């Protein structure tokens, strides 16, 4: 039998025990470093003046910006609210077609119409969300795949927009070394905007509500959160960024057709990048996007583009999920090893 302890000792010990086990609060990110990076990105296109051919790096970077924007957008619904959509490229497609058709028919540049394209995507997101957000978990994931398939069939058979053959868009007449720069900046702006939005949401009541929804909707409702409205709003906002990115991408490609946008791999990329980086974190989409694109380039340069590429992506993903189940950002944070520059939550 243990000796009988004094009540006060026990109470004091309890306090000590509690202090020892107490969880620590999160730190904030470091802003100056981010601003430096942003400035560097903004100045990067100047390299074209050096006379070298930097078109491919520019292409890769704007491609990465595009995915940052789409993945952050996706993250608002998939990460914060916990509704994993494998059909978000539908909005990518809608954005591309709205701006693309305006460009092809009236010659209005996508740079002007991209926000409108985003708004249309948002509106469609609103309507779709109204139906599909009634179910959650596996059923929602499946419904998102079905949405993708339905959109594909509809676009393939919609003659007005050129059906499955698509339509080609007028080119911007610029000397070869400058031709990527406008798109570079446009994508950069969208990416930064999506990150800012994502940050703002993450730190707002709305974001907290979404995270509550991702955990337990009934509980969230009874806590006074209008879950239906929150979810649909999240869906619409996330569609906005994906749609805007699609608008610019369409003009950049100078050609739009359903199978550029509506293949499952595009959606998969969004999901993968987000999960790899850390779902539900602000920095996760950036980390995931950069890593995945870097891996992909690595494979292409080492082995040429081939099936090995797909195999490699798959294996990386398996390993990432097994060893970083909360994404790189999420897992590092849990272990307290997250560099401050990535801690935006």
């Amino acid at each position, binding site marked *: 039998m243990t000796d009988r302890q004094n009540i006060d000792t026990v109470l004091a010990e309890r306090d000590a025990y*509690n*202090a020892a*086990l*107490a*969880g*620590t*609060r*999160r730190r904030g990110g470091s802003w100056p470093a981010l601003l430096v990076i942003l400035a560097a990105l903004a100045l990067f296109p100047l390299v074209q003046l050096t006379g070298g051919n930097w078109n491919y790096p520019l292409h890769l970077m704007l491609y990465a910006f595009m995915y940052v924007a789409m993945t952050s957008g996706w993250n608002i619904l998939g990460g914060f609210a916990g509704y994993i959509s494998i059909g978000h490229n539908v909005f990518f497609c809608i954005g591309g077609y709205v701006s693309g058709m305006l460009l092809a028919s009236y010659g209005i540049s996508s740079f002007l119409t991209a926000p409108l394209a985003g708004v249309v995507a948002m509106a469609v997101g609103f309507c779709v969300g109204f139906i599909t957000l009634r179910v959650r978990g596996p059923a929602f994931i499946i419904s998102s795949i079905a949405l993708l398939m339905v959109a594909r069939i509809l676009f393939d058979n919609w003659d007005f927009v050129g059906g499955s053959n698509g339509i080609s868009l007028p080119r911007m007449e610029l000397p070869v070394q400058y031709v990527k720069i406008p798109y570079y900046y446009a994508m950069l702006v969208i990416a930064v905007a999506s990150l800012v939005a994502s940050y*703002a*949401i*993450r*730190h*707002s*009541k*709305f*974001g*907290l*509500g979404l*995270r*509550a929804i*991702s*955990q*337990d909707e*009934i*509980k*969230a*409702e*009874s*806590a*006074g*959160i*209008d*879950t*239906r409205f929150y979810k649909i709003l999240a869906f619409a906002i996330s569609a906005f960024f994906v749609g805007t990115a699609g608008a610019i991408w369409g003009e950049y490609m100078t050609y739009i057709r359903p199978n550029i946008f509506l293949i499952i791999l595009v959606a998969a990329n969004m999901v993968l990048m987000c999960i790899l980086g850390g779902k*539900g974190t602000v920095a996760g989409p950036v980390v995931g996007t950069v890593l995945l694109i870097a891996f992909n380039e690595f494979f292409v340069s080492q082995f040429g583009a081939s099936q090995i590429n797909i195999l490699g992506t798959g294996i990386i993903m398996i390993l990432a999920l097994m060893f970083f189940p909360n994404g790189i950002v999420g897992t590092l944070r849990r272990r307290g090893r997250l560099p401050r520059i990535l801690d935006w939550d």
Partner: protein
Amino acid sequence: MFEVRRLSKSFGGIHAVNDCSFAVDEGSITALIGPNGAGKTTVFNLISGTLASDSGEVWLEGKRIDSLRPHQITRRGMSRTFQITRTLEDLTVLENLIVQSRVTGIGGLFRKAIGSAEEARAMELLDFVGITRLAHEEARNLSFGQKKLMDFAALLMSEPKIILLDEPAGGVNPTLLEAIVGHIQELNRGGLTVLIVEHNIELVMSISHKVVVMAYGSVIAEGEPDAIQADRRVLDAYLGAQSADA
């Protein structure tokens, strides 16, 4: 202030709630008791809008609320806890509390998630239920009883006018329970209306002003605690031998 009229709900063939009516007076503590499966939790679910009733009405402060959605009901000042605690597992305990605080208008949506006044209040509540150290812990890591305590603290965050407690004592350590009961009574004196479901009969009898007894989905008795405790039907259906000893 609050009234349930002829509420019914069935699942498949089971009439979980059957033509159930009772009223809760403003500023009172009313207990809802009854055997397992009597339909108490279902009544809570119907009142708070978590479930849609088959028929019947729910009135709060002179307005019908049975067609409202749960969050609308919460915003009218009626909050509840869950018998099987529902926690937002990935959120920290602090966030679990903050989530319950009131958000107004679209502008409010984009206000800072954790305001400093809210945080102070939340910490105060956590301190009261003795889990301050867990404030930044993810809620999934709490023990059964700790979740119950967190749930209770969170309920108070929204500063409700009426609270529905579904078995708040189950799984909570008796020492702490006393403090909590004391707190509820104090709030009640400040004007809070309480409807409580509880199997801890001693607790029920000591704090409630009125007791409503349910069995098989309907109210079988209603009245002052003493009268209820002496009621044969209640004894048979609910209390059994054990309380006869007490």
